[in-house]
């Protein structure tokens, strides 16, 4: 076992964490930093439940070693909401009833944020492609797509890493 100390920024906060060389970013986030919003599921990069944003782009955190994240800026689902409210994508997911069992939703939210950061007003096809790496076993895809399109129509209050708070609905 080889512990490596990594320095990274998680949800805007600098963190210094000793990690095992063979542990993934997903394990570091959940087990070392206690950020259990990011979900562990397929562990082969197919389901997207572990999606986080690393240096501005979405990645499957199960397919990235924690050591590779040294020096990176990470946003997890815990970093989306401000101090007293959810961000526009989360609000849209609530408004459309996109969350059923909820397990895939953190990953869906992160992919949606990453998509909207690149394509502010995506078409339905672009949303489908942007979220193709996130499976929903409740098959709530219609509402999820509707939510992303709805969120795109709302003004973006922040930079997509931690938006200023707005009151929850």
């Amino acid at each position, binding site marked *: 076992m*080889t512990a490596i100390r990594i320095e990274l920024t998680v949800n805007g906060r600098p963190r210094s964490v000793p990690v095992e060389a*063979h542990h993934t970013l997903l394990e570091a986030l959940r087990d070392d930093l206690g950020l259990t919003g990011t979900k562990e599921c397929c562990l082969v990069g197919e389901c997207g439940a572990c999606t986080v944003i690393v240096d501005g*782009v979405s990645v499957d955190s199960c397919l990235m*070693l924690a050591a590779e994240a040294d020096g990176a800026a990470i946003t997890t689902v815990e970093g989306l909401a401000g101090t007293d409210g959810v961000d526009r994508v989360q609000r849209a997911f609530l408004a459309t009833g996109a969350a059923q069992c909820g397990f895939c939703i953190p990953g869906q939210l992160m992919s949606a944020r990453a*998509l909207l950061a690149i394509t502010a007003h995506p078409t339905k096809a672009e949303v489908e492609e942007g979220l193709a790496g996130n499976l929903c076993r409740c098959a709530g895809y219609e509402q999820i797509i509707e939510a992303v399109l709805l969120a795109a129509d709302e003004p973006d209050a922040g930079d997509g890493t931690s938006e200023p708070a707005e009151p929850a609905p």
Partner: protein
Amino acid sequence: MRAFAYERPADLAGAFALLAEHGPDARLLAGGTDLIIRLRDGSIRPRLVVDVKRIGELDDGIRDTSDGLIIGARTTMTAIAADERIRRDYTALADAAAVVGAVQIRNRATLAGNVCNASPAADTAPALLVYDARVVAAGPAGERRIPIDAFFVRSGVTTLAPGEVVTAIELPVPTGRRGAVHVRRTRRRGHDLAAVTLACSIDAAGVTRLAYGSVGPRPVLAWGDTSLLADRSASDHAKAELLERLFTDARPSPTSMRASPDYRLAMLRVLGLRAVRAAIDRLQAQGVRP
């Protein structure tokens, strides 16, 4: 995952030293989207993982040179699919890079990693074969360029020598306008490995190049006289007969769970004709009639 040590050398000399010291106990890590799956399932058990992403000589850019376009070893599928020069001059590669995994995979997976992984189903491989790409490999003895057709051996095996590191993939300068396309057959729409993956390029003189994968132990560049394929007066029937001969090296595995050999061969014929038509359309869209 089983424990291993992790190193991230700052230069090639550091990587060569680690590879020389650890030999087959060391594995190179680029994007990790294949390697980490295999580390986790235990199909590979290295003592050391060498992360190439901090090697100073490797870049994540795409550079124009007199030898063609040079794609750095750290360049991701996302960057390749979005690059204007690749979309214009190496369209089949842009097509292929855009369908590797989903967004999260493409943001990490590298072209260099895709060729080194040497999956028979690698979507970028047929396009690289069609374009006569070269793999730039550096080792303690110096640098060499390996034609992509001489690089693939079989699943997971390449002609990269022990101790060598792929530093870039080179795409030769196009000799003229061409229409090129990548097509694939998957079990479902969206994110899946291909049951057949195929690229076709046709130039203004009617020279047609066709390469296909996921139907044998390695991706194959079709060899032979292909001029009939670009001939607008030739019937689909005649083209299908020629394709049949060009596909004689297809040897689909009977044990693969993705598709049966019969289905793959049937789809190879369908995709072959479809790709020829699409390549001609793309050539004509540039005002060129083959």
